[in-house]
């Protein structure tokens, strides 16, 4: 999508000469080992000088040392693990927000609500259940840090094993402890199990935040139960970002749907992949050269606005300019409710499971 758009608009102007972009793909089968092998092949045999990242944190973790070794820049859009950005990599740049930010905004929102209701933010009680894997524990670390900032009390902190198919004991505790906020993250499996059992056990916590709502299709599978759930997203088409390529977030949304009519909703993963291409186009033009080192320096100085959100890289390579947004499920629709400056709908609080 991004490559077509940039080429359509005349390509990239590098030092007075116009270049068209072209992507060379291999299938890494989502296996980190394969990612590293194929990346070596791209660099050594195919002579690729600029790399776009693979999908998932695990494969990106395998790719980062390879690009570092060959001093070839990589702009990645699908690896959010925090561990990618504390190893001192100089050639890896990520347009997306890192995983510890996924649910941190829910804590801020809970504090806002508490203050609006005449309570102190430090009165908020939080119950948490996270899967015991690197991604979810990153999310947990972010929640913990923000909860500490507000002085909130963690009343429950359960970790779910990978193949746990029942969290009713955890939810019974939630019922007993009556928290103000319930936070759950465990990939698609965790989201589906949580949605099912929260409905079955009639858990009436006023605020529930959950990752992977879209992936687990909870609005189709558990329509009544999940009303009012808060779900984090990297990007939403209702956000008020704009750029010269797609005009706006909704412009991008329309363009993708026009080109690929099978998409009813455009996933944020697609949007950020496109954003990675735009970042390259911008950096190549500013570098005015095809030398990987010069492009890397241009990348690290990136400060641009895209339909996907603002992009500015920290020295570690993660994008610190773009916020995660929280969407609330309201009558089956995902509506942005936080942060307040991007909100398209007011927050419904306390949440109410609807009848259907």
């Amino acid at each position, binding site marked *: 999508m991004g490559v077509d758009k940039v080429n359509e608009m005349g390509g990239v102007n590098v030092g007075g000469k116009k270049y068209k972009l072209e992507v060379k793909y291999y299938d890494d089968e989502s296996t980190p080992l394969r990612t590293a092998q194929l990346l070596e092949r791209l660099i050594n045999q195919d002579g690729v000088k600029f790399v776009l990242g693979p999908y998932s944190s695990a494969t990106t973790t395998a790719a980062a040392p390879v690009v570092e070794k060959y001093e070839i820049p990589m702009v990645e859009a699908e690896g959010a693990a925090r561990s990618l950005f504390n190893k001192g990599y100089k050639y890896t740049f990520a347009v997306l927000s890192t995983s510890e930010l996924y649910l941190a905004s829910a804590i801020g929102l809970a504090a806002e609500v508490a203050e609006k209701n005449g309570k102190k933010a430090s009165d908020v009680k939080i119950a948490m259940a996270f899967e015991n894997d690197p991604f979810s524990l990153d999310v947990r670390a972010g929640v913990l840090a923000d909860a500490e900032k507000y002085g909130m009390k963690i009343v429950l902190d359960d*970790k779910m*094993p990978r*193949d746990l198919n029942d969290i009713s004991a955890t939810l019974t*505790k939630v019922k007993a402890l009556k928290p103000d906020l319930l936070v759950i993250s465990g990939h698609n499996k965790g989201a589906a199990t949580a949605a099912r059992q929260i409905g079955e056990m009639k858990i009436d916590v006023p605020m529930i935040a959950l990752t992977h709502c879209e992936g687990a299709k909870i609005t189709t599978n558990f329509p009544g139960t999940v009303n009012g759930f808060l779900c984090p997203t990297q990007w939403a088409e209702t956000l008020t970002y704009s750029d010269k390529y797609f005009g706006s977030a909704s412009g991008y949304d329309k363009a993708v749907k026009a080109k690929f009519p099978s998409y009813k909703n455009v996933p944020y993963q697609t949007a950020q992949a496109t954003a990675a291409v735009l970042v390259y186009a911008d950096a190549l033009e500013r570098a005015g050269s095809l030398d990987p080192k010069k492009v890397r320096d241009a990348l690290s100085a990136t400060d641009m606005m895209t339909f996907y959100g603002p992009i500015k890289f920290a020295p570690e390579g993660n994008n610190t300019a773009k916020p995660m947004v929280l969407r609330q499920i309201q009558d089956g629709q995902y509506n942005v409710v936080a942060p307040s400056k991007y909100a398209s709908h007011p927050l419904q609080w306390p949440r109410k499971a609807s009848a259907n």
Partner: protein
Amino acid sequence: MFDNIMVLVAAPVFNIQLLLDGLFIGATYALAAYGLALVWGVMNVKNLAQGDFVIMGGYIAWWLGNHGIHPLWGVPVAIVFMFGFGWVVYVTIIRRVIDKELFTSLLATFGLAIVLAQVLNLLFGPEVQTANAGFPILSLFDNAVTLAQIKIIALILCALLALAVVLFMKKSRMGQAIRATAQDARAARVMGIDTDKVYAFTFSLNAAICGAAGALISMIWVIQPFYGISHSIRSFVIVTAAGFGNLPGVIMAGLGLGVMENYGGFVLGAEFQQVVVVGLLLIVLVWRQFQQHKLRRAVI
């Protein structure tokens, strides 16, 4: 940990929730474990694909539910389908390993477990699924305890199925033949029992029982292609604790395990819920060892 125990002391009503959840899920464990006890006792095959049979039954109910048929019909459909499937597995795989040493049958059924999980993954995808039976949820004690009607229905069906199997084993010719083969396969052959057919029937019956348990689990819990192993482990824990041919023992161990798991998850945290299962297995094995040691000394 102690705060969690304090919660139970301060608000005893939550004990009821844990007990009920444990008993309902324990009943389906007991059902699958009884099938394992049957195969283990009669054929001396330790079926590591037990949990995957359960998950297959679950997918049958879920699939029917997706095609406009009430998932409760999944129970009889799973029984019939899995019986046939069990027969095919017996003829193609189990028959070849039944008289070989222990490790051959362990490896064969372990391989079968991996293949089944992957096939389910290819057919239905890796997502967690649940069959929606659509029954109301009862609230007791001011909403502190909730009870889905489907769980009560599942418990009754479990009891009925167990009763049917017991009657079958006691009264029918085939049931008697199975019991005779379990006691002494050679003697049974001498008496004119076709033990090959008995084995095929036993294995198929086990698959059918698992299928029924799985169909119920898909309605009261969630299923996923790779959840089979945790059901296999539970069946092994229950059978190891109760022994073969001991139906009351299997039922008690199954229900007990369900309750222990729920209490473990509550008191120690969800991360330790399955530790409870494996921990119990360890305790049972050590205790058994100790008991046998005493027995051996008495014999000497």
